[in-house]
């Protein structure tokens, strides 16, 4: 890849734009390291999750279901279901990145997380004159600190995990972190309807072994969200700054 001036400046802009995302990322990665180690994974396995999967919510889902002694395919299907939103990210980035070389798209797919998606798409829409090479540089720049930050946070959590006293009730940090991720995503009435159905379905089917109720409840909630959107109730609940 020839690095042109405009590509390297796009790369640097990507790095700079990612800085605000480091703050919420670090504690989340740390939490996964702590919880994974305490659940009995060794450091290599905890790191295996963070390096090979790089998707915190999905990693925590897999861990929770493994602790629940769910069958392997339920663990995999549920953890992958949490990541289905990334298929939507992939689809929405395809028109901007479609012309890039295969290996770059493959690498970008590995690095496609909530942060890089949101940050890059906003930039592409702001700067439609960017070339494909500049867009790829920007995207990789956006992950230059985020990906290593994710690994470093995880390993730190894995190393100090056993030193943290039980009185801190960090088991509850998992649902709290999940809540903190999901609540800001409740942007429209359709999202709220989907989440409500998910809560009711999740509670109603909680008696099923191995969290088997998760998938039907989630699927039903997705259908409700899509249906409510079709009724035209998907306008933002409140105006976001700058949106």
């Amino acid at each position, binding site marked *: 890849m020839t690095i042109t001036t405009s590509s390297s400046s796009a790369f640097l802009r990507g790095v700079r734009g990612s800085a605000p995302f480091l703050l919420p990322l670090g504690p989340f990665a740390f939490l996964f390291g702590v919880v994974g180690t305490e659940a009995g994974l060794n450091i290599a396995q905890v790191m295996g999750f963070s390096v090979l999967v790089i998707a915190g919510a999905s990693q925590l889902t*897999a861990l929770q279901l493994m*602790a629940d002694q769910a069958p392997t395919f339920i663990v995999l299907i549920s953890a992958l279901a949490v990541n289905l939103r*990334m298929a939507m990210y992939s689809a929405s980035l395809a028109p901007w990145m479609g012309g890039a070389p295969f290996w770059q798209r493959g690498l970008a797919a590995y690095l496609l997380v909530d942060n890089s998606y949101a940050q890059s798409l906003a930039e592409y829409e702001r700067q439609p004159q960017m070339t494909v090479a500049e867009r790829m540089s920007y995207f990789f720049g956006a992950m230059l600190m985020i990906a290593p930050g994710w690994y470093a946070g995880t390993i730190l959590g894995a190393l100090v995990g056993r030193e943290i006293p039980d009185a801190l009730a960090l088991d509850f940090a998992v*649902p709290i972190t999940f809540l903190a991720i999901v609540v800001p995503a409740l942007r429209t009435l359709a999202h709220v309807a989907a989440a409500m159905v998910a809560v009711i379905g999740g509670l109603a089917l909680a008696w099923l072994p191995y969290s088997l109720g998760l998938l039907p409840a989630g699927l039903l909630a997705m259908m*409700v969200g899509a249906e409510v959107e079709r009724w035209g109730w998907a306008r933002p609940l409140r105006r976001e700054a700058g949106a």
Partner: protein
Amino acid sequence: MGLGAPLAAGGRGVTGWSDVAIWGIIVALGIGTWLVRFSFLGLIGDRALPPWLLRHLRYTPVAVIPALLAPLIVWPPATGGQTEPARLIAAIVCIVVGLWTRSLVGSIVAGMGTLYAVQGLL
């Protein structure tokens, strides 16, 4: 054992899993997640997706995560499935602060802070 016990129903953590099974899940989840991310970017190029599919995909996070969460909050494994007021209140505070500030760190701090405060009071 520490946090693993509360995390696991019955306090077993991942002890029921062999090393091979754990690595199998890590690698399969890694490949599967990469395939989900690569899907449209890699294979379909810039062809448009059917709107009904995009409409469903939009709701996956808010559909799957709350279904997983609700039982963990209402019947926490750490208390043996007994509903605990401190945890319910902490979850509610976390939701309210999240709606109010849209801040990830802010709502985590508010939620855990409330849990400690209420557990300390009761």
